[in-house]
């Protein structure tokens, strides 16, 4: 049930500012694709185009194609809401809904869409998602407490639980572990390993070891200078990228000899 996404010649704009230029890449089904690159090179921007979140920013637009399941996400008549139901997202900063309890936050995808869910199924969904995000043990006794009463790292895991509770086809994660301790990070990585049996996962990370550990393929983004657009420099199997990349820039970045 997972789907692959093929991106070709994607240009991403903020108003007149071209933030990412000419990206062509494939994100395989049932695998983890990691995106790495220096800060400001457009990883988040690119990631947000994959579920059409980019266009909610005023003036932002996208050129090119992103084909999922034979359908161009940016084609005529494609409803962004439908796209987002299939392509879930975890943001760089945790953003639980402050007015909702922990349980309701997990079920937000259901509740906010005005859908009904039998009680038993709801309980099951909550537990499964929270266990998946390695948060269940910490919150199982206080599911009715507000989501914003959790620590920053717990909030991020709550957001991960919220995203996987709706069982999307593709899961986009923007530095999901940047606020987490090593144990939770490991749990999230285990979760990704597990999820990739069913989902397509795209993860942005600044952690080389993490990219090496979890991903099957890695894409390296770079930027020529401030105000210039970001480019996909190269993309290959993770083992190849980390052992013998074909571009000098990739090697420099991965080995920490950047800039």
């Amino acid at each position, binding site marked *: 049930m997972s789907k692959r996404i093929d991106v070709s010649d994607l240009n991403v704009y903020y108003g007149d500012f071209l933030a990412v230029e000419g990206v062509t890449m494939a994100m395989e089904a049932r695998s983890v694709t990691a995106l790495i690159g220096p800060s400001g090179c457009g990883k988040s921007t690119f990631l947000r185009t994959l*579920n059409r*979140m980019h266009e*909610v920013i*005023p003036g932002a637009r996208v050129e090119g194609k992103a084909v999922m399941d034979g359908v161009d996400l940016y084609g005529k008549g494609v409803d962004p*809401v*439908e796209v*987002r*139901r*299939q392509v*879930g*997202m975890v*943001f760089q*900063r945790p*953003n*639980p*809904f*402050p*007015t909702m309890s922990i349980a309701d936050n997990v079920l*937000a*995808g259901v*509740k*906010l*869409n*005005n859908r009904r869910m039998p009680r038993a199924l709801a309980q099951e969904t909550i537990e499964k998602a929270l266990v998946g995000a390695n948060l269940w043990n910490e919150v199982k006794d206080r599911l009715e*407490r*507000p989501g*914003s*009463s959790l620590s920053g790292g717990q909030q991020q895991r709550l*957001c991960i639980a*919220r*995203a996987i509770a*709706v069982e999307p086809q593709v899961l986009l994660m923007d530095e999901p572990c940047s606020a987490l301790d090593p144990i939770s990070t490991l749990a999230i990585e285990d979760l990704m390993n597990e999820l990739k049996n069913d989902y397509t996962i795209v993860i942005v990370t600044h952690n080389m070891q993490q990219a090496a550990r979890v991903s099957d393929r890695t894409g390296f983004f770079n930027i020529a200078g401030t105000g210039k657009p970001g480019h996909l420099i190269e993309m290959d199997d993770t083992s190849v990228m980390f052992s013998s990349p074909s571009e000098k820039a990739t090697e420099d970045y991965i080995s920490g000899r950047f800039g």
Partner: protein
Amino acid sequence: MSAVSTPPRPVRRTRRLPSFVPWAVLAGSVVVGVLLSLLSGELTPTGAILFGAVVYAIAITAISASVEGGRWARDRLATTLVTGAFLIATIPLISLVALVATRGSLRFGWRFLNDDMVGIFGAMTEGGVYHAIIGTVYVTGIAAIVAIPLGILTAVYLVEYAQPGPLKRAITVLVDVMTGIPSIVAGLFAYTVFVIFVGPQYKSALIGGVALALLMTPVVVRSVEEMLRLVPNELREAAYALGVPKWLTIVKVVLRTAIAGITTGIMISIARVIGETAPLLVTVGLVNNVNFDAFDGRIATLPVYVFRQYAQGGVSVDRAWAAALTLIIIVMLLNLVARLVSKFFSPKGVR
């Protein structure tokens, strides 16, 4: 270089004044204030407090400076000034409430609240505001029914939908202009509209409600707009990313998150119009009896009632004060409700 080489000094403990000192200084200052007031001519409470305050500000700063050092002295001075400003600001409020409460309590009571003015004339001290309360509830209620949805929807449009451009700017400017409309103009406008479309014979609470709605809408728009802008964009994006359509995101996330502030804003807007007199004077007039029909006939309202009773003079003045007290109590009750609502709905556990 030297900054690096000198070893860091240990954190010093500053000597602090014991906590009773400010109170002692305050007591002393009041005594000095009284003396200064006597010296300057005659002893007046205002003079004593004024001199005392100045003496206190100087004394506490000087004492603090000599014992605690410059930073704490500035802190003491600032605390004194801020507290002083707060006290001065509360003087009008407290004296107003106290005045209305004392004058109003003369007539105020269960009888007063349940009686109308039918058959009351001359020096009779009976009579009450029942009919005026009904009228005020009607007129304000009609205004609220019109203005609250209109205002909230306008604010939602401005914040969530409007693209930056001439239309958005035009609406914003118009709302600003409407905020400044003199209330009598709103009254004349509503009156004229009804004269043109319904006829000169028509009089009802509806006209007053429309006039007040005109004054209320911009206030609602403004306050709701501010509240919606405070809702972080991350929450909207979180909802979108879950495949929630925009309108549901607005209803269930944006409005829900801002509900406490919106309620407060709406209450402020109601308080703003509930005491309006001029537009009601020209639209709904005043009667002595209860009128339960909001769509037919003149109706009494509290502000107009106060105005008329006060203008009549004599024993009627007491009724004016009692009616003013009634109005203040109604506004305070509304405020209480708003506080409960925002306490109940505001996001919990936010750090």
